């Protein structure tokens, strides 16, 4: 089979139960139709699990852990890896991406991705080089926090590589790993990389943990994959970077100036588990982070000049030693305002701690805020927790983060993620906890509210009909325009912050792959194909949760309560608008009025293989 351009050409298939490693390829048609990352992972999952989807426990050995690059990974600015599998939280699939050198190291080692099945008997990590994959003991790494994992693995792998082949100095490998939260199968735990980068949505940290897989490490020395039109790619690469470099305010401020302005201006920031979305705490403004904590003002991953990241380090006081990319708006909001914490040092500490524990800084922190609101309402008590969980008390949130990561006490319940914990606590306490659970389809919502309608991302059906639920990186607009956004970026696998004009991106994709691709064709075929397949998975769900069409295609209740303060006081999400746009969205994608893909649509998108399962749902 010929290798399509832009691909390294093979995938590693690793059966941990049988310790079997093989190289795998996929038909060119699959690659053209599903591209890579999010799209291709969904196809692989169907191929391998298919109609048994509902019966497969996401945390059981039959689920797959998939880490894929895409044809644009490493070549287009902003290298990323896409993690997928049956999501332990949504029970569908999420294309969960993280910026990491692991992605291009994998590709320069000759692989476009790794597909892990089964379950190792004891903790292992996988090492990928040009010689293939190797399963290695990770008993000594199990239990280590993220920072420690990186340090140990970096040293160890470099030493192993050196002992295998002398080349001069071996440069450090790329890696993805889980922290204690992932190991202990905290359901919404994430796959971590580079200390503070995460594939956060989808709960794939617990999936790794369920396989006893601590990390995957890759080191390649080959070239990045050959492309269809190399001269064009070189020119487009320069042009793309010109666009990134010109975005001065983004490069300067990152996302972290949003911690103050998103709240004060747009009033769409989670404050105390979304009881509010407005604050005017100047202490939380960008310069307060920048002046005191930013030790590197422009930090980036491979082939990126956006530099949205800023390395922050707390150098004195109680939280001395905390290092993270901060403020990153999401964690600034979720590990700050959402906890009622408005002190930059506390925010940096809690963000760093949550990263180090391997929690999702959004999902896990959402659950912690949820717990704090239950405490505020007297549903959870000091006895349940072992301490007071007051808003704004950084120490208390430090404790709850650890409790959940290690599944201690009430942490064991909260470790099931906000939605499942709400179900359990409702049962345990006899009080309906669901009104305080801010999630859509089990996925805790990103730090952009819909009520003010002033946010730059999230509106009415932004989350409600999203096949990735509360994922703010893959927001729904109208079933057409957004398909060339995150659905594309997550499948081509690059960072959506490597922002250039869409025309340039599609020319870039064509020049890399040689596929006869247009924005329109992607929006009409590839995008809908991927999203429809994801929708099918999501509808199938199971075994513990099955989402109800329409009823679960909605915002959490809180998003319909009026905003209590701020410039948008009294305003809330328009339920009628949600209903109307939801139907329009289904229609555009060729789904029926309950959101089930129609037979015609499946045929048109070459998804005939789904028909049997979808018939059952209609």
């Amino acid at each position, binding site marked *: 089979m010929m290798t399509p351009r832009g691909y390294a050409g093979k995938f590693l298939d690793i059966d941990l139960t049988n310790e079997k490693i093989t190289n795998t390829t996929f038909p060119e048609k699959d690659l053209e139709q599903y591209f890579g990352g999010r799209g291709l992972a969904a196809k692989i999952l169907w191929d391998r699990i298919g109609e048994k989807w509902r019966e497969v426990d996401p945390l059981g050995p039959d689920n797959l852990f998939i880490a894929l690059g895409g044809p644009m990974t490493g070549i287009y600015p902003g290298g990323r890896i896409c993690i997928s599998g049956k999501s332990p939280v949504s029970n569908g699939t999420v294309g969960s991406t993280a910026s990491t050198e692991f992605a291009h190291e994998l590709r320069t080692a000759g692989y476009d991705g790794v597909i892990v099945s089964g379950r190792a008997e004891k903790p292992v990590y996988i090492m990928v080089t040009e010689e293939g994959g190797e399963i290695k003991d990770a008993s000594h790494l199990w239990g280590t926090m993220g920072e420690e994992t990186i340090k140990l693995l970096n040293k160890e792998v470099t030493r192993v590589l050196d002992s295998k082949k002398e080349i001069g100095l071996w440069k450090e490998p790329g890696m993805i790993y889980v922290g204690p939260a992932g190991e202990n199968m905290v359901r919404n735990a994430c796959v971590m990389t580079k200390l503070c980068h995460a594939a956060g949505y989808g709960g794939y940290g617990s999936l790794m943990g369920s396989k006893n897989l601590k990390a995957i490490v890759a080191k390649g020395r080959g070239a990045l994959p050959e492309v269809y039109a190399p001269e064009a790619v070189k020119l487009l690469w320069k042009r793309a970077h010109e666009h990134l470099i010109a975005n*001065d*305010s983004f490069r*300067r*401020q990152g996302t972290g*100036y949003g911690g*103050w*302005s998103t709240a*004060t*201006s747009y009033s769409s920031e989670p404050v105390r588990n979304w009881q509010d979305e407005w604050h005017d705490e*100047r202490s939380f*403004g*960008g*310069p*307060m982070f920048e*002046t*005191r*904590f*930013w*030790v590197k*003002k422009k930090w980036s991953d491979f082939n990126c000049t956006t530099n949205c990241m800023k390395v922050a380090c707390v*150098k*004195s*006081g109680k939280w*001395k030693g905390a290092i993270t990319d901060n403020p990153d708006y999401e964690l600034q909001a979720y590990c700050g305002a959402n906890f009622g914490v408005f002190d930059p040092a506390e925010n940096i500490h809690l963000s760093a701690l949550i990263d180090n524990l391997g929690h999702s800084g959004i999902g896990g922190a959402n659950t912690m805020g949820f717990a704090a609101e239950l405490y505020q309402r007297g549903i959870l008590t000091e006895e349940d927790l072992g301490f007071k969980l007051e808003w704004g008390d950084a120490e208390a949130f430090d404790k709850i983060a650890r409790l959940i990561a290690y599944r201690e006490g009430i942490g064991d319940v909260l470790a099931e993620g906000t939605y499942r914990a709400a179900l359990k606590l409702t049962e345990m306490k006899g009080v309906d906890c669901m009104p305080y659970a801010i999630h859509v389809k089990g996925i805790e919502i990103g730090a952009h509210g819909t009520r003010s309608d002033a946010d730059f991302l999230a509106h009415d059906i932004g989350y409600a009909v999203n096949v990735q639920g509360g994922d703010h990186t893959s927001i729904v607009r109208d079933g057409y325009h957004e398909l060339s956004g995150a659905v594309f970026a997550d499948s081509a696998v690059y960072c959506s912050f490597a922002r250039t004009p869409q025309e340039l991106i599609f020319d870039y994709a064509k020049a890399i792959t040689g596929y006869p691709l247009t924005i329109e064709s992607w929006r009409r075929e590839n995008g809908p194909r991927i999203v429809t397949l994801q929708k099918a998975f999501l509808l199938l769900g199971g075994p513990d949760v099955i989402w109800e069409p329409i009823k679960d295609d909605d915002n959490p209740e809180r998003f319909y309560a009026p905003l209590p303060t701020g410039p948008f006081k009294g305003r809330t999400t328009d339920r009628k608008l949600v209903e109307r746009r939801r139907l329009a969205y289904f229609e555009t994608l060729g789904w029926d009025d309950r959101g089930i893909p129609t037979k015609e649509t499946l045929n048109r998108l070459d998804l005939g293989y789904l028909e049997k399962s979808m018939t059952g749902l209609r």
Partner: protein
Amino acid sequence: MTSIWIVRDYENCSGCRRCELACSFHHEGWMWPEASRVRVFMPFPGVEVPHLCAQCDDYPCVESCPVDALSVDADTTAVIVDRDACTSCGACYRACPGTVPFLHPADNKATICDLCGGDPECVKVCKEAGYNCLRLVHEGMSPNRKLFSRNPIEVAKDLAVKMFGEKGEEVI
């Protein structure tokens, strides 16, 4: 035209204060550090903080002026002082969250950065020397701007900790 703004990267400031000299050349015709619209505060050696107007989106100084001597230049977003109208009451610097305006050492008139009408001299000399502590960007109004209107000693306290770690807590 897009409004302009002066980005400030405090840790890049060398303390050379050519910005003050360039500013005073432009506005005063001669070297006059204390009349410069940008003043580099240096409460501890090595911790230098260029202090200049950040053009807040709500212009509290303009609001505060009892005689309407302050106005906003629609093009640049700079605060413009009508020196004839100014009564030297000091309301503007008291209203400023960072106490940026000051009364001129010669005639006590309110003195505020006017962005040199669009091509700030301070930025030019800073860039020329390769510090890029002060840098010009063409950007629209942002609510974040007013967060830069901060007491320079407070800024220096933060900066000192970033530079010197725990020791930084003691030096200012």
